[in-house]
């Protein structure tokens, strides 16, 4: 099978990754998309939860046809190993010595069970860098608690900021919002660790907790509690610093726009755009304080205006007038978004089981070393032979012998 030559920031860097769910691959994609060789160890005995999650190609559940998995794993190589066998664990150790980084985000205890703890690996590779990224940290009272993003979101307290006063708290988006938080922190730390080893010769263990990382996304609320003793309140779409501020209904089925007004000048611009200049002088709405006090009336009259327009019309007209406004985009809108298309967030690639399939690209751009789509998401075990013979330098005899023992999958 053909492996594209890689370039970019991490050309030449190799990572052995015991990835799980979305957090693992998203972290690894930062490296793989910039040229690193990321070897993801998988087993068909217990395929990644994403491989067995909907949607599937042609609605047929199959771990090589999962849209969830295949969306997040481009540029990553798959090594199929039956980790129940001692030979497989030996291969993992040989790779740990060979690779620059050992990464894992399983529930703590799994890699220990396989004899791949930091202490054990350090014995065979003294300058090893290990990145651990479990839900609650690799040690501590919750380390056995299975972690899912859907559960981490509430434990970290995020839904306290989502919902209407007096109604139930709500989850963020489709699910598992915290899955995109930890990968950023982990990547910054891992690059720092690689640099540190280059300068000092010392490896290290990096231990991240998705729970702890998620709290950074509500840190001002933490301080509001530790300083002012105030618990968060659900305030719908309002803001203490802006009015109008919210989501307004537009023409069409489930179409909405956003408008956010902080200054009185912007309020005047909105009034003119709405064709209601008399509101500028209306004492109910003169200052932010007035508009906050009469927010219900204010939102009603803004809605009366937006209802006859498409969200695109509202956005274009208001933005031209210098007012912050946007379309509330659904997934179909997102994939047509002119900005995101130019910025290459989606990578259509040819996948042997999926056909032409959109893979996730990168979230920012580097001017001299762009991220690139090198290879589609792997089939389970697709790169086993490549990894064993080309990276580990196994002879054909050894490879065949291990294959016959059931080591590979």
């Amino acid at each position: 099978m053909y492996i594209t030559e890689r370039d970019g920031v991490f050309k030449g860097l190799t990572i052995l990754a015991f990835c799980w769910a979305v957090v693992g691959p998203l972290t690894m994609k930062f490296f793989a998309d910039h040229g690193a060789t990321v070897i993801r160890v998988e087993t068909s005995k217990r395929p990644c939860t994403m491989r067995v999650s909907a949607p599937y190609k042609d609605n047929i559940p199959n771990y090589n046809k999962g849209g969830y998995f295949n969306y997040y794993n481009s540029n990553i190589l798959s090594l199929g190993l039956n980790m129940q066998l001692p030979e497989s664990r030996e291969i993992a150790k040989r790779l740990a010595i060979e690779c620059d980084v050992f990464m894992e985000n399983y529930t703590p205890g799994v890699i220990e069970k396989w004899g791949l703890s930091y202490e054990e690996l350090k014995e065979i590779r003294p300058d090893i860098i290990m990145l651990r990224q479990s839900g609650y940290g690799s040690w501590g009272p919750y380390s056995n608690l299975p972690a899912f993003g859907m559960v981490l979101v509430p434990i970290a307290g995020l839904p306290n900021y989502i919902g209407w006063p007096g109604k139930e708290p709500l989850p963020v988006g489709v699910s598992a919002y915290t899955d995109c938080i930890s990968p950023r922190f982990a990547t910054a730390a891992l690059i720092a660790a690689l640099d540190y080893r280059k300068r000092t010769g010392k490896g290290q263990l990096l231990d991240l907790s998705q729970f702890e990382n998620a709290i950074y996304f509500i840190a001002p609320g933490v301080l509001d509690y530790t300083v002012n003793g105030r618990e968060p309140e659900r305030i719908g779409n309002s803001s203490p610093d802006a009015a109008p501020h919210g989501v307004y209904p537009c023409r069409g089925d489930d179409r909405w726009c956003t408008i956010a007004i902080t200054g009185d000048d912007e309020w005047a611009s909105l009034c003119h755009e709405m064709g209601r200049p008399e509101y500028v002088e209306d004492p109910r709405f003169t200052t932010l304080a007035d508009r906050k006090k009469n927010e219900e009336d204010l939102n009603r009259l803004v809605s009366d205006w937006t209802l006859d327009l498409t969200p695109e019309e509202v956005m274009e007209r208001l933005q031209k007038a210098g007012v912050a406004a946007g379309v509330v985009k659904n997934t179909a809108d997102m994939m047509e978004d002119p900005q995101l298309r130019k910025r290459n967030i989606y990578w259509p690639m040819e996948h042997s089981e999926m056909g032409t399939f959109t893979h996730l690209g990168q979230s920012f751009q580097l001017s001299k070393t762009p991220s690139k789509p090198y290879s589609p998401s792997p089939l389970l075990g697709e790169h086993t032979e490549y990894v064993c013979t080309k990276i580990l330098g196994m002879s054909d005899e050894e490879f065949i012998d291990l294959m016959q023992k059931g080591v590979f999958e």
Partner: protein
Amino acid sequence: MLNHCRALDLTDDKGFLCGKILGDLGVDVIKIEPPGGDLSRRTGLFWHDIPDPNKNLYWFAYNSSKKGITLNIESAEGRDIFKNLVKTADFVVESYPPGYMDKLGLGYVNLSEINKGIIMASITPFGTEEPYRGYKDSDIVVMGMTGTLYQTGESDGPPVHISMPQACLHAGADAAVGSMMAYYYREKTSVGQHVDVSMQQSAAWFQANAVPTWELNHKILKRSGAFRAGMSKQVGQRQVWPCKDGYVFFNVIGGRTGAKSLSSLVAWMDREGMATDFLLNLDWDNFDMFTVTREEMDNISNPVGAFFKKHTGKELLEGAVARGVSIGPLSSMEDLLNDECLNARNFWKKIEHPELGESITYPREFVKSTEADCSTRFRAPLIGEHNDEIYKGIGLSQQDIQKLKQDGII
């Protein structure tokens, strides 16, 4: 780990987190604000609700581990001083409107002429491309353009915004990642580069399974309130459940992924006499959320819901930890501060604010390293707090500094 590096942080609230991450990794981060202080100091939450720019909690949260100076980079003299600082720096991070730094002669091209290895990250609301290049932003507007807002809320109501700003955090964190990548490349080649971050793109990066669901099934995943969409062919799945004193989040997940957690929950319910025959006889290993029927779902949800209602969030969390059940009670801030796991891992750190006469509890660190302490080091800077130290460091005298102050440059 990065104590040998320096960053100049010109961001407003669109990009604070970038410098915060670099600062916690050891970088000497210098926040550069216009004289009088950054405007973002003036809105949001305040220490004891006193609206003083030196008491802003949003500022505190994301500018700790940074020093601070003031500098008017729009003045010719200010620009020269800035260029001198760039000679001493590895990173520059800014969040001015697209083209602003170029117009001042301080864009990446200009700065790289002064310092070939400089790494510059720019955070803008929508990127530098048309049509949205000049669009005005606000967190709700940007989040609306990421898919997440549309997907959040009750199924029969409007999309609902996360009232704590998020797009700036995705973008700030990405700017840190991009800057670190550029640094890694520079250490190999001695060449710096520009990191271009759009808040929209950063916050749109993660959409769970929304994109493949649209592509494969032509189905747009919608917000579904307390119910989770998209996992099953036909049945919505409850994920927010009332418990005795609040709410708990829990997903029914079958197959090998969820079997262990579900069986443990049923065993726990059984011990309290609340497991039904249906639950006890269910083969969780082969239970498939994809093909589950409404009746089966009700047979699960009703007893599970009753069980949650009988217990407090704290009881459910303790039981979940002991039994390995994946349930998530909604934590209040009080819960987080008292959380057993966070405290065992020493996650909270008191940081001194001498001018306020007190110490404030902060999140300590985002990573535990066996080689370096990545704890938040010190509180966020007051306006112009480190002017003397930093300007003297690039050879200015006390008189020079005095003069700059009089001229309104610093």
